């Protein structure tokens, strides 16, 4: 969805040029039909409503984003538990093996002496 506001000449009326997605366009057409307005008035009304409810819509969107983020967060923590455990266990096993091998070498040396 893209849009721009422009006027061709200095005193000419302002044109709003906008690409909407199909669903928004359908809703806009339905709004015009429902309220029996012409396109210009309908667009001005819609824009004014959009400006008035801007923060409410941002809040609504943020609430949705928060629930999505919460879900992702749970997923990441679950994965992190497993992945960190794998990393730590590998480190533990490696150092354990090294110690054992070291002990083994020492005991061999001692027995040779």
């Amino acid at each position, binding site marked *: 969805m893209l849009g721009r506001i422009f006027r061709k000449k200095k005193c000419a009326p302002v*044109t709003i040029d906008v*690409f909407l997605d199909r669903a928004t366009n359908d809703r806009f057409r339905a709004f015009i039909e429902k309220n029996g307005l012409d396109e210009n008035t309908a667009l*001005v009304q819609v824009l*004014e409503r959009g400006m008035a409810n801007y923060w409410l*819509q941002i809040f*609504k969107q943020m609430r949705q984003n928060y629930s999505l983020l919460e879900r*992702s967060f749970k997923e*990441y923590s679950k994965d992190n538990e497993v992945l960190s455990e794998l990393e730590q266990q590998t480190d533990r096993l490696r150092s*354990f093996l090294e110690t054992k091998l070291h002990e083994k070498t020492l005991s061999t040396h001692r027995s040779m002496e």
Partner: protein
Amino acid sequence: MKAKIRRLYRKRAAQPNTVGLITALEKNRKEPHLKITIQSEAAEKVKNFLNEKGLPERWGVPLLIEYGLSDETEKELDKLKSEMQSQMRELWRKYALMKFKAYGLFTENTRITMKLNMLLSENWSLKKRLKDENLLEPVPSNEWDGWSKTVTENYYRKYVCKNRL
């Protein structure tokens, strides 16, 4: 030599004209296109509002139209307004904190996933060796012992290729 030049020209002519292609695509764009003339006062108001919010016209105008066409009734909007007044600050705080923590976990998971194949093979071989040489009894068994290639690929897709979030 002339034949070679002619061949090159022909090859170049056969290549698609990029500008023409983009213009044709713009003309045949499937998205509905509105071009409406409105009063300059209303347009100024919209322009000022977008400037104030730091939104470019390109994205701001369709966004305002979308917001203006939202389905909420006045009653629902009032309810949302009262919720916003009571929850906004707390929600911002929780959201920012969770985003920060989620980012930390994500980067940590990415770091481990980058070396996941190596870690897994090392883990398996260490366990095998400890078991074979009877150095550790019992050798721990974990969920990653049975991981197939698909599991590691999923981790890669999620954390390295970042097809999520």
